[in-house]
């Protein structure tokens, strides 16, 4: 009994520590590439992760959302402007505030690789660029159809594992990331990260080479499968994570056991230097913003310029006029009356 207590106590102490995270900001690149109504579940997958990541704090300016099919406004959607990830319609994951950066035909292999490597044309708006730096932790989530060694874009193009590996290699060369969590929810997902060679990448695939990834359930009212197994379990797990939660990545890696998910999760840990037991889930799914209180050094910064203010007070009205010393800007030339209480 005493031994068990001692063991439990030691485990408690050990688990309380987490190795120091070295990132300074968080980004998310969420990609869904399937077309057509019957791939409803891929969009639902994408938006479930999008909602989780937003709830945990990553702002829209740091999320790149690539959505190839607009399910919410699809004419076959019986509940327009909504996308549900659950047959009981618990949560509308499309929501009120959503910012899709690449939509429809803009979701191409070309754009995706250019986005990751930073080689977009210079006139691209900032919201469509991945403006990461050497301290960024990036969550890359891809869902759609996949085959051994490649990921299908729009049913036409292929993003091969070699290309993904090259893109990450170029990102590492330019230090465009600190750590990457790469999640693929496709068939034969583990084949997508077989060729990776850059450090600090933790890769998770929803199935191994030669296996299919399965969907979770169908919504009989709509007639399509509504979410995939892996993302369903990931979403359920992330529901229990809050911004200051202590859950670790090792727990996240165990979420979809074979007997429930019908496919085996493929994980690649050899490129990742830290132990997943020491890494918090919020290091990838949440965000940190280094802030510090600022104390004004009044002895140092002492401006002695004063814009001219001319207050004239009387009982009935006051005139305030402010003008800069060059006289170029003038404010408050109006006469104002005191407010009636």
């Amino acid at each position, binding site marked *: 009994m005493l031994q068990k207590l001692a063991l439990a106590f030691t485990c408690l102490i050990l688990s309380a520590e987490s190795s120091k995270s070295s990132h300074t900001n968080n980004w998310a690149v969420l990609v869904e590439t399937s077309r057509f109504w019957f791939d409803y579940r891929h969009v639902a997958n994408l938006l479930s992760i999008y909602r989780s990541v937003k709830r945990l704090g990553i702002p829209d300016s740091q999320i790149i959302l690539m959505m190839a099919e607009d399910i919410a406004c699809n004419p076959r959607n019986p509940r327009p402007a909504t996308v549900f990830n659950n047959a009981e319609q618990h949560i509308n994951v499309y929501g009120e505030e959503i910012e899709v950066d690449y939509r429809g035909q803009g979701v191409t292999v070309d754009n995706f690789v250019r986005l990751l490597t930073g080689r977009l044309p210079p006139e691209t708006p900032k919201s469509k660029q991945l403006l990461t730096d050497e301290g960024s932790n990036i969550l890359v989530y891809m869902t759609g159809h996949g085959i051994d060694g490649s990921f299908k874009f729009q049913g036409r193009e292929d993003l091969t594992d070699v290309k993904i590996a090259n893109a990450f290699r170029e990102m590492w060369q330019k230090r465009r990331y600190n750590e990457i969590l790469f999640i693929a929810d496709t068939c034969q997902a583990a084949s997508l990260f077989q060729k990776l060679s850059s450090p600090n990448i933790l890769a998770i695939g929803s199935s191994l080479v030669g296996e299919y990834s399965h969907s979770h359930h169908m919504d009989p009212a709509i007639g399509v499968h509504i979410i995939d197994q892996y993302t369903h379990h990931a979403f359920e797990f992330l529901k229990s994570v809050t911004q200051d939660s202590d859950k670790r990545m090792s727990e996240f890696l165990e979420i979809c056991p074979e007997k429930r998910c019908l496919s085996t999760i493929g994980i690649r840990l050899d490129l990742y230097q830290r132990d997943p037991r020491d890494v918090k889930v919020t290091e990838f799914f949440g965000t940190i913003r280094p802030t510090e209180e600022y104390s004004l050094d009044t002895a140092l910064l002492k401006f002695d310029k004063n814009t001219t203010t001319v207050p004239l007070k009387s009982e009935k009205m006051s005139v305030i006029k402010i003008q800069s010393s060059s006289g170029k800007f003038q404010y408050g030339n109006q006469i104002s009356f*005191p407010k009636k209480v």
Partner: protein
Amino acid sequence: MNKIKGCLYIYLRKTQYASHLFIFIMLGLGLPLWWKTTEVYRQELPYKDVESLRESFQIVQEVRLILKVKSINGGELAKVIAKECSLPGKFSVVVTPSNYSVEDETLSYLALNLEDFDASLPELEHYHLQIIEVDKSEKPVVLGRRRNLFFEKKTSLNLLAAVIRSILAEEGPTSVVNQDFDGTSDLWNQLSKLRRFASSSFLNVLFTFSNPDPELFDIDWPIEAAIEEYLQPFADNLKDIVDIRPSSQHIYFAPLGVTPRKALHGDGYEISTDLSLLINPLESKLGEQVLPGPTANLVLLVPPARFHPLHLKNRENSDSFIVHRWGGIAFYNPPKDSNGTHWIDMQPVMETFIGQLRLLIGLDIKLPKDVARISLNEKAIADWEVDYLLRLKTIENIAYSTKAIKSLTALLETITNIVISNDVASNVSSSLESIKKSSRLFEKGMLKESYKESLAASERADAAFFDPSMLALLYFPSDQKYFQMKGRIMKSGFCHQKVYQLARFFQPYIGLLLQTILSILGD
């Protein structure tokens, strides 16, 4: 000779030399021609020169200090300072001692205080620093607004040397870059942990005024006047370093991201939670992505009326905080009773904002205790601080561009089917030239010119690395082609690449051939 003629005669008469001729032309002429024409367009890059660039920063800068003494031995002190402040491999400090001239004596006599003395001394060039002994000062070492440092007779040498080293950017952030870059060290993480923005030629500064209850608080701010009066002199002093581009906006109904609690001491409310939670709801309304390039957001936040007045937890500080590499947020609690539009007094607000902006561009110099500074007027920056920034940013730029072109050339050597266009090649060469030039100028101490060159170097290096044309063969890299051929065997190999190109070369002709055959048969 006759034998050869005979053999040739038999050959030309007896054998079917047409097919042999055909094979000879195909392999002898056609094959090399096809090989050459199916090459990926790759310009030559100066690989060797780039290799030879030193990864670990080893530029020895010569710094000249002028020492002016009254009552102590200048020569001795000069030698000691030079020895203490020189860092082998980084800084070599040369100190020129002299006594007070007649002019100096007059100025010192006429000056009311140190501030006047500092202001009246003649202007110095960049990279000079004047160390002046004075009779009495409020602290052992006082830093002036221009390139002057004042010390007393009894000031300890250690303190003097420590202050000079801090001003010359020997310790602190520059020491971070004076290490090897192999990417796996903590160096890169340290750089990003700094508050300051990455070095660039311009910085947008977006002043935002956020009023969530405009119907209850009728407040406005004379921002154009404030920018002209307070920001412009600061920006003018920085024009050699960074071009500050101000803009301003009002936003309404932006929510406060946290619920403040009642203040434990005093009245009003305070924010006890993590300050970073305030940023997200605000950021979605700021619209800073409209401005191209790096943007510093300086936000003046009026708290909602029901949490009036609102302070940060630690009341001794001003009610503001900085967000690294993003900007700063300050609270403004308007007076409850005001007649008509309340116009904010911009002086304290701009003091806060410009103080934050100074930190965000890199002016966080850690000075030892017992050092006083003469307060800055509306220029908001001392001349020696400009030199400090030039040194800091030059080193950062040189390090950054060295790393960039080295990684680019390494990348292009390993991935052999990336197109290298003329633009990329010229950018790499000119970046290399600029790095070398900037290092030479930096060693001589010509800070302004060296900074300009280093900035050009980092811009060209980025232009080369992120050139969109490098992905021109995106759809035909080896892995893609072989994938579509559905042959797993063909996934790699140079010969296979050439065979495939051969097949593609003949593809249109085969098509044409088949077409003609079919049309003949069809007729």
